[in-house]
């Protein structure tokens, strides 16, 4: 009496052969990036050169770090507006502590830890006190920025020999140049990828974005994971500050103003839905590179105002959001 016909679903085994719709937005970003590089390559002589590619990474290493952390938070359906300020705070802490003569091996962990603590505070506010992520991290944004000015209102140059040596290290792979900052940023992307896809914490991040109530009923550690996502974001932001300080050799309270918006734009252009649950950290990397390429193209154009970067980013953001909306509508 138990002999029954097996239930077959419309999307059975066959779906693995076809392209998974989940990858479509990332693929879209990749196509746009490739297209922009191709256009740049045909318009300008020195565009498709290893130097340009290398600089794309070198100039945006800090933004890559921010985007990795932001991806975690946005995947849970939240937002972190404080990352620009936390980046600035991190540069200020590093610069002022080094100026006071602390060793690099202590300064860098302290700066990164400061970011983690701010992230933890956000997570607790959001999870325990039920504050909207927007409001909680907005408060954190003002707090961190204010703290920067309390510590040091002026720009502090960094002359510590150990730090400059670390920041100045580079390596040539053929004609491609990498710096410490780029290596750290790419390692962060790799860690982010592994954590999101191969740990229970990472899968719970996705589950929360897919449905917090459901995740809770499935018995997953929702509270811990949500707080954890903000800690990751705060930590990544502080690391971003470290990479920024490596590039600029200074700490300044006005670093990274509105950079949280660049990070959010990169994540969204990279195919992550602001509602949470869908997206990839590799997409966010592509998003950062896309933003960087826009900037490079406009620099190559020469006579265009750099504000055109913002306009192109705005248009691109709009196109991607509409594209995602269309994709998700077609699916349901």
């Amino acid at each position: 009496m138990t002999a029954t016909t097996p239930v077959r679903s419309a999307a059975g085994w066959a779906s693995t052969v076809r392209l998974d719709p989940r990858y479509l937005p990332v693929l879209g970003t990749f196509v746009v990036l490739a297209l922009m590089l191709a256009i740049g390559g045909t318009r300008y002589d020195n565009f498709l050169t290893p130097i340009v590619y290398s600089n794309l990474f070198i100039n945006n290493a800090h933004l890559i770090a921010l985007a990795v952390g932001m991806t975690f938070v946005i995947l849970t359906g939240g937002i972190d507006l404080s990352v620009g300020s936390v980046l600035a705070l991190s540069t200020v802490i590093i610069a002022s502590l080094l100026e006071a003569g602390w060793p690099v091996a202590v300064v860098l962990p302290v700066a990164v830890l400061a970011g983690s603590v701010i992230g933890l505070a956000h997570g607790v506010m959001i999870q325990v006190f039920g504050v909207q992520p927007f409001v909680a991290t907005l408060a954190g944004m003002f707090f961190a920025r204010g703290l920067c000015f309390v510590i040091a209102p002026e720009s502090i140059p960094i002359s510590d020999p150990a730090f400059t040596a670390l920041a100045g290290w580079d390596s040539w792979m053929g004609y491609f140049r990498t710096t410490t900052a780029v290596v750290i940023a790419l390692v962060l992307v790799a860690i982010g990828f592994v954590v999101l896809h191969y740990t229970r914490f990472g899968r719970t991040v996705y589950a929360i974005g897919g449905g917090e109530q459901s995740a809770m009923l499935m018995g997953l550690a929702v509270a811990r994971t949500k707080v954890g996502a903000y800690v990751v974001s705060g930590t990544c932001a502080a690391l971003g500050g470290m990479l920024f300080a490596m590039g600029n050799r200074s700490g300044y309270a006005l670093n990274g103003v509105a950079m949280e918006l660049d990070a959010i734009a990169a994540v969204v252009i990279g195919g992550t839905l602001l509602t949470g649950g869908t997206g990839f950290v590799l997409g966010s990397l592509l998003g950062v590179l896309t933003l960087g390429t826009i900037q490079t193209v406009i620099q190559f154009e020469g006579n265009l105002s750099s504000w055109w970067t913002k306009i192109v980013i705005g248009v691109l953001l709009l196109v991607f959001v509409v594209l995602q909306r269309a994709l998700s509508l077609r699916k349901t």
Partner: protein
Amino acid sequence: MTTQPVVELTGITVEFPPVTALAGVDFRLYPGEIHALMGENGAGKSTLIKALTGVYQTSSGTIAVDGTERRFTGPGDARAHGISTVYQEVNLCGNLTVAENIMLGAAEPRMLGGLHWPRMRRLAAQHLERMGLDIDPGSSLDSHSLAVQQLVAICRATVSDCKVLILDEPTSSLDADEVESLFAVMRRLRDSGVAILFVSHFLDQIYEVSDRMTVLRNGGLVGEWATAELAAGDLVKHMIGKSAQVLESVERGHDAARPGDGEPRLQAIGLGRKGSIQPYDLEVYPGEVVGLAGLLGSGRTELARLLTGADRSDSGTTLVEGTARKLHNPRAAMAHGIAYTSEDRKGEGIVDGLTVRENIVLAMQAERGWVRPLPRRQVDEIVAGYIDQLGIRPADPEALVRNLSGGNQQKVLLARWLATAPKLLVLDEPTRGIDVGAKAEIQKLVAELAAEGMSVVFISAELEEVLRLSHRIAVLRDRKVVATVGSEGTTTDHIVDLIARGDITEGDAA
């Protein structure tokens, strides 16, 4: 059955002062049986399940699992002791893969502190195969139908050692084939020794799949029967009960226009909506009260919502006084003099933060449009008139509706629609959850309105009430109008028979 029950509840009482939701209920569940828990809305089915799984605290009584007394702290704790619950809505994450939805949380295989994807997929595939499901564990859950998702939820529930499976209305959004595959899985689990507690509003399904049933009514135990030994008609009687309410008798306006006189005020021809209610015909004449009878989930509300444009129909036409009209939304229906009061008084009816006055003039003002506000003096007159006519207490136009009793809230709602002078009033459960006095007043009002020529469609879970008020009664069962009978000479027993058997004995309407 001589074996020991896997779950035994004795004298369970759950109180939410001042309400007693469950009063001294006994319940036994044996291994290897499908046990149906039956009862109308508010009978205490959900409360019983929640008391068992530790969501609600019991104020007296004992819960024994495998003969050991237990008190669970919540669904997670209950699950750890082998009692899993699958709810009506699929509580899984659609953006994750099927494998993750089955394994993640407790049972996923790990390697070096991370997830072992290939083994996770393989294990999930084994669990799916055990359930007779042939789907790719690596596909995302969203890409599957609701039925498959429901089965995946059950699969998840059975991954860890599962002795008791609670299925709370799992079939309400499934079609016939999908229900069949769900039943196949249920039988397979039962034969492997799992005890299944099954809640459904569909009588056919209960009779098809269950072995025994327990009937609850108003928080009390009515009895426990083997399914084969209880006829459907008796089951319905047990569920509905004979409410011995002493109500002042309400005279039907028998001398009002009868069906067949003149043109129907509203006529639905083949009106239906897929997954909601099968196409039906219904006409309502001026001065007539048409009652809708049927169990919860039989499509009473769905029928009313289609009739009034609250939901869009996907087949059929609506004629208003002989002319075909498209009623796409309640506003369009209002324009043709059709008003609808929802059964969800709090959610879709009154605005509880506004005053009695504001609530009453709401629909009238909406009809006029916001650019032409009603003069305050006129508003006061209208409101005072209805407070007086319907006996709304407290008789204060400025009282917040939130602070009124259920019956008075219902009267405010009625006043709101009466103020728009509708030609057809559709009342969905207007007397539910209100005291006897207010109930009688509302019934009387309905009779009076009909006598004055208004058409009324009246929905109630109480058959006696429907029978007393209505000229004609449409009987629904399993989302289908199975019969239309004239109320003259019809008894509640006759209607209970129709609900239980669904015989198409087309009643003489005239």
